[in-house]
């Protein structure tokens, strides 16, 4: 809704850098990813600006960050699977402590979104009028990037930093094909994401070698395709 698909991707790539750093320094990829994503959110806010300008900024930061991440990984001499787990996710590899941290972050993100949902919607779809009505548009943009960073880190634990888009963007894109009601779209996309995750985990139990991420991204893509086909038939009713 905010034209943020690329920002999501950028944030997750840099969560990878953070995770690689975290692995190297403290043998804790989750904390590292968290730090990485938050730093990116702060950077994007500081460099910020309009959506078009932002995309090139993200591209620049992303490219450098990815390189740095690869460098950090080459210095790491632990288990080789740790690296692929950052990139492609490892839902079964999260420790209890990390699980608690992820739960707490999820709850905090949910609570903040509940409180700011209306001004955030206003600032996203109609910034000029929102500003005229006294909505702190810039501050909300910063808060949103931070929330985005936290959400991306969460999703990255499941599907990995490379595949975050399948949980952060695909479900919302599918939901937008089916409804124009912002509340319905929110719940639909949450439902789609959960469906893809649970479905992917269950499907992966049948296989010893294929990661859940593979099934999750496939299901997520499937939902989008179905929504696109059925949604395309419904739209013209309004025209």
């Amino acid at each position: 809704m905010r034209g943020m698909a690329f920002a999501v991707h950028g944030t997750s790539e840099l969560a990878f850098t953070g995770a690689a750093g975290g692995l190297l320094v403290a043998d804790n990829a989750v904390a590292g990813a968290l730090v990485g994503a938050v730093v990116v959110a702060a950077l994007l806010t500081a460099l910020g600006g309009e959506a078009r300008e932002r995309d090139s900024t993200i591209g620049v930061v992303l490219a450098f960050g990815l390189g740095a991440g690869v460098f950090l990984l080459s210095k790491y001499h632990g288990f080789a699977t740790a690296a692929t787990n950052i990139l492609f996710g490892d839902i079964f590899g999260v420790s209890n402590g990390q699980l608690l941290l992820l739960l707490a972050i999820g709850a905090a993100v949910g609570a903040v979104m509940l409180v700011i949902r209306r001004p955030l919607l206003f600032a996203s779809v109609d910034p000029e009028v929102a500003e005229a009505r006294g909505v702190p548009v810039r501050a909300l943009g910063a808060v949103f990037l931070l929330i985005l960073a936290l959400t991306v880190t969460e999703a990255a634990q499941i599907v990995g930093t490379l595949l975050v888009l399948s949980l952060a963007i695909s479900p919302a894109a599918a939901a937008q094909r089916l409804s124009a009601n912002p509340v319905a779209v929110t719940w639909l996309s949450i439902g789609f994401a959960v469906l893809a995750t649970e479905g992917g985990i269950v499907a992966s139990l049948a296989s010893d070698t294929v990661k859940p991420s593979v099934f999750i991204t496939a299901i997520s893509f499937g939902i989008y395709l179905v929504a696109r086909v059925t949604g395309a038939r419904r739209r013209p009713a309004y025209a």
Partner: protein
Amino acid sequence: MAPVAELRDAAMRLGGRTLWDGLDVSVEAGEFLAVLGPNGAGKTTLLKVLLGLAELSGGSARVAGLAPQEGRERVGYVPQLRAFDRQLPLRGRDLVRLGFDGHRSALARSNGDARRAVAAALEAVGASAYADAPIGLLSGGEQQRLRIAQALLGRPPLLLCDEPLLSLDPSHQHEVTALLDRRRREDSTAVVFVTHEINPVLPYVDRVLYLAGGRWAVASPDEVFTSERLSALYGTAIDVVRVRDRIVVLGAEGEIEACHHHVHA
């Protein structure tokens, strides 16, 4: 009664250039003030002052007797037509709803109140029929109707409009201005209407504020739109011609038309 909007000895300087100074103008309840002038004369800046988004370089501004930042709840705002993405998950109904509680955090008011207020606002502008269509699929005229519903939802005493007719075709321009006029009469809302084209609003305008060349004039349209008055403002020879019930402004080198037709490309 105190004026709904008031500027006293107001000055605005941007980057060493004086847009206007010594500006005295007040708008009474139910009055329709059109703000005209060439591009860059400070028309939008004047609205920003009344919205509390820009500071005057000198003088004072009041909205409903309050400083503009404190008067925001009493101001409705209708912007230029804007292109919404076709996939944007937002219906006309949702856009209007933002005018009710979009600026409030959390759970402030009940959904029932909001729904009733939104339904009434949609009905009042005749937009109920397409209230559930995605906003990106609506015509410019439909969109601006929704804007007016959104802006007038809280029955503000003051309505600020920034070129709301821009890129609308003439029949939609006529519809939108007629609607605006009807709604402001029903609630005696004061309207400050920034435009680069006087003719679409001419039947409704009480007074004109004309900004040009760092100077300004406030009077009825008949008094402002004379060759003498506009020539004095621009500091160059201007001809004002009346063609039936329309006003045509001609600059010496065609520069006024240039201002009028190449703005906001």
